[in-house]
């Protein structure tokens, strides 16, 4: 076994990259593991290569995207492994260290660390409408990251259906790249502006630039000439003769049924923390009503209730990319302090700037959470909608056991929901909310799936390589 690392960072998005740069500044011995082929995470997907090889594309992806290249650069001094999927973080040993196990190039490897930072970010909230499993139905984020990573775009009729800042941003990026959009179905319920007004003053002080950009995006969409339907509900994707999506049906604000033909349907109802690793280590989670998802409970530095395991970025609760950098830096500072590379006053000194920034981003987020709440139908899918994509369990099937299942884990035993390869990532929140609703409980009382290692498929060869290996 090689020496114990000071810090293992999982995830090379803004949170992980900023944490790596900060940790490097304080001379921590860091190993960074990320499962994408390139650093950048979701917002800055592939940014270093795109800036170097396809500089013309950066102009339509925007200045916010270009900023990611400086982050990748700032973290260049550390030992970073791409294509490395972490599937186990073990319990704390007697000396407080934990073992982290990952797979890379068909081989599993492990390392021990004094601290682990989970910076695995967010995922788009599951949108269980009838037909969401059809080929051609995808997400707004998927269209966007594919455009960044590979400069590809749908050539047919693209319909964007959903709510939140990300659909607005995608619409603008597509407009700038001259890629047509057939229609936008905005599922934001009516009356949100009034509800959000209370949060406007603090957001305007805390994050004025982001707020200004958001308003510009909204105006650009409404002037783009793309047909926009407001207050849409009752989404339903329809299959064509070839089995892939051919149209989307929906209810308009006046209650009329409409149908729009499409070749690609991109859904989006906000993002939620990717819960796998924080759940795996047994950290306590709390239901966040405004964001309608679970957040891991942390101290102000990001340490979870699993000692020595920190979380930074959107994996700890949705605050956006700028706040992700801040929380990554704060976690790295806390680890440096604990390992005696920083004294108390230096810690306070370095932390202040990032704490201030986080306050500003929190104010903005309260506004966004109020403007774009997850719609209520998310928790009440139509009976024929598939809830668990892997095991093809419908909402009707889940409802039939929801009354007497003790919780999500028992529903899993009855129906196999959450037992496929995605391990409940795409049905966990729906199952929790549906059971809670039927039983008249809160999601917090209902709980969530128990998550176990390995959190990604592992081959027998990979397991065998683990027992032979000499450590990273």
């Amino acid at each position, binding site marked *: 076994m090689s020496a114990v690392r000071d810090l293992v960072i999982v995830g090379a998005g803004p949170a992980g990259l900023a944490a790596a740069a900060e940790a490097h500044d304080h001379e921590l011995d860091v190993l960074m593991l990320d499962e994408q082929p390139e650093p950048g995470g979701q917002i800055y997907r592939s940014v270093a290569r795109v800036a170097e*090889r396809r500089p013309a594309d950066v102009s339509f992806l925007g200045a916010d995207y270009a900023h990611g290249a400086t982050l990748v650069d700032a973290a260049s001094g550390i030992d970073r492994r791409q294509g490395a999927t972490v599937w186990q973080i073990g319990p704390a040993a007697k000396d407080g260290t934990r073992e982290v196990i990952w797979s890379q190039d068909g081989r599993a490897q492990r390392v021990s660390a004094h601290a682990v930072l989970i910076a695995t970010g967010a995922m788009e909230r599951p949108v269980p409408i009838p037909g969401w499993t059809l080929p051609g139905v995808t997400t707004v984020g998927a269209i966007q990251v594919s455009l960044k990573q*590979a400069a590809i775009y749908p050539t047919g009729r693209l319909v964007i259906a959903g709510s939140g800042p990300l659909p607005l941003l995608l619409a603008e990026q597509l407009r700038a790249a001259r890629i047509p959009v057939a229609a936008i179905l905005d599922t934001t319920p009516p009356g949100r502006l009034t509800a959000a007004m209370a949060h406007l003053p603090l957001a305007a002080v805390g994050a004025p630039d982001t707020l200004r950009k958001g308003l510009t995006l909204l105006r650009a969409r409404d002037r783009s000439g793309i047909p926009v339907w407001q207050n849409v509900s009752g989404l339903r994707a329809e299959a064509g003769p070839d089995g892939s999506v051919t149209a989307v049906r929906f209810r308009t604000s006046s209650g009329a049924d409409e149908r729009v033909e499409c070749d690609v349907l991109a859904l989006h109802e906000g993002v939620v923390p990717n819960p796998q690793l924080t759940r795996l280590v047994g950290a306590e989670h709390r239901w966040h009503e405004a964001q309608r998802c679970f957040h891991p409970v942390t101290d102000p530095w990001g340490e979870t209730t699993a000692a020595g395991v920190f979380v930074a970025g959107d994996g700890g609760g949705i605050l956006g990319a700028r706040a992700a950098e801040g929380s990554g830096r704060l976690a790295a500072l806390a680890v440096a302090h604990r390992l005696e590379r920083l004294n108390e006053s230096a810690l306070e000194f370095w932390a202040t700037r990032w704490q201030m920034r986080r306050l500003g981003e929190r104010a903005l987020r309260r506004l966004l959470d109020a403007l774009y709440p997850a719609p209520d139908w998310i928790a009440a899918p139509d009976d024929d909608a598939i809830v668990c994509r892997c095991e093809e369990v419908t909402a009707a099937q889940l409802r039939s056991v929801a009354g007497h299942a003790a919780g999500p884990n028992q529903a899993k035993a009855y129906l196999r929901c959450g037992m496929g390869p995605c391990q409940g990532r795409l049905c966990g929140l729906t199952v929790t909310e549906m059971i809670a609703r039927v039983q008249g409980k809160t999601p917090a009382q209902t709980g969530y799936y128990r998550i176990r290692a390995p959190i990604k498929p592992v081959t027998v060869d990979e397991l065998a390589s683990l027992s032979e290996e000499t450590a990273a």
Partner: protein
Amino acid sequence: MMRFARLPNPGRSRRIVFQFEGEPIEAQEGDTVATALLAASAGATRTTAVSGSARGAYCMMGVCFECLVEVDGIPNRQGCLVAVTEGMSVRRQAGPAVVLEDAP
């Protein structure tokens, strides 16, 4: 029918040729298996274990597992996380995927 195209300004990206179901497919530097298959408009890339229905990539970020393919003989690889390399052999995945645990 879902079709994708590549923006016309490839910059200095290299071309890569790999095999899909035994046929050569041209990809670009930076492609994952999933983006390359979308660019080639390959359509659905797996069928489900339960009903045999067709699925295509959904999330493009590693969480949905709809992009599962066989890469160089190894099944259950997430196409959206695997970088395409010259000469790589990719096949559709039919039916059973891994079950990671047998009891909840």
